[in-house]
């Protein structure tokens, strides 16, 4: 095998080794971090419906947001119509 290929095998070996080492460490740290977070701030209502600055589509929540909007509009219109009738 040529010098170059040998160097390549070294690179691949150390490379994959490092990538795995890094991500295995990250798994452990992440698990530890999540555990610590849930210990020190236990029963909070976790997934707050956060303000969406992202443009990513996620059909689920989008749809529910829309229907909520719609409900509000219908409510507003209903109120307006009622008011309108009273003022007649």
């Amino acid at each position, binding site marked *: 095998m040529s010098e170059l290929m040998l160097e390549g095998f070294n690179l691949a070996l150390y490379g994959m080794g490092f990538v795995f080492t890094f991500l295995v460490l990250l798994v452990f740290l992440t698990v530890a971090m999540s555990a610590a977070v849930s210990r020190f701030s236990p029963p909070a209502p976790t997934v707050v419906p956060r303000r969406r600055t992202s*443009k990513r589509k996620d059909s689920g929540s989008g749809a529910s947001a829309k229907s909520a909007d719609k409900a509000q509009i219908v409510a507003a219109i209903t109120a307006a119509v009622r008011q309108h009738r009273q003022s007649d």
Partner: protein
Amino acid sequence: MDQLIELWQSTGIYQMEPKQLLMILVSLVLLYLAIAKKFEPLLLLPIGFGGMLANIPGVEIAVGDGVLAQFYSMGLSTGIFPLLIFLGVGSMTDFGPLLANPKTLLLGAAAQFGIFATVLGALFFSDLGLFDFTIRQAAAIGIIGGADGPTAIYVAGMLAPELLGAIAVSAYSYMALVPLIQPPIMRALTTVQERKIEMTQLRAVSQREKILFPLLLLILVALVIPSAAPLLGMFCLGNLMRECGVVDRLTKTAQNALINTVTILLGLAVGSRLIAEQFLVPSTLGILALGIVAFSIGTASGVLMAKLMNALSSSKINPLIGAAGVSAVPMAARVANRLGTEANPHNFLLMHAMGPNVAGVIGSAVAAGILIQIVG
């Protein structure tokens, strides 16, 4: 009369060389793929257009003082453009699914095998005397297997700028082809039974975890692989801005005006590397061939890693999501979801596949750091 001849000699018709004409056709094909086939249009449209501009004879656009050459030296030689793109991508990435199931990080690790196998492939070509790739060039070609555009452009700009055009075109084309490249490999390596595996709904992840994760990641990078710090640093900054909730106006700009502006300029700068002299060389064919190998091996190793994890653990994961470990966000995750639904209509893998998908971004940035560290 002399002046008329001079004018005629200044036209493109007179000066056009066949290889420039060929590159203009190649650029038109890229534009066709971007527009008609929706192949990664955000990048391939400016790249293809930049390629056309770069091959117009008789005017300096991509070399010397030309505007594309200026964009190149401003943002690609310096690494600034891909890093700002990474900032924007970070600000659009949701690590929630990954945090809910951290072991999917391992799938993102396994899929990077495509990178290193391709490095070996490139060197093997050199060994055979087919091409003459140096180790730096081989490393830059390998990173195509990371299936992550800005990472590939960043590494190519560092290690082998002379191949940047071919590497970027290869990376983005195959990313667009993920829905065609991956399914046969995924089907070949899994049984119908495996593809039917349903996964339990992901737990809710708190904002605090989402804020701490990018910091944790950056600290680990700082301790273990500093040369990945520019890429992952900008990525983590973007993500921290997104999750912390106190700098929303910055996040919004990073997700829109900033990343869009840089995308246009980066695309044009990459397009400037499609000049005929640099792109129409045999090694471009080698790069295109190696690129598809890289994607295929990455896909396969992700799936196999998932099967290995199933063999060793009691909580089963659907091996299809392993293929999402190559990154190619969010296409690869969608492919996994599609094949899952195909096998079992009640099988919704999209969210589960987003975990390995973003893990693949981390994985290939780490691999990029190692390559730069060892051969750079």
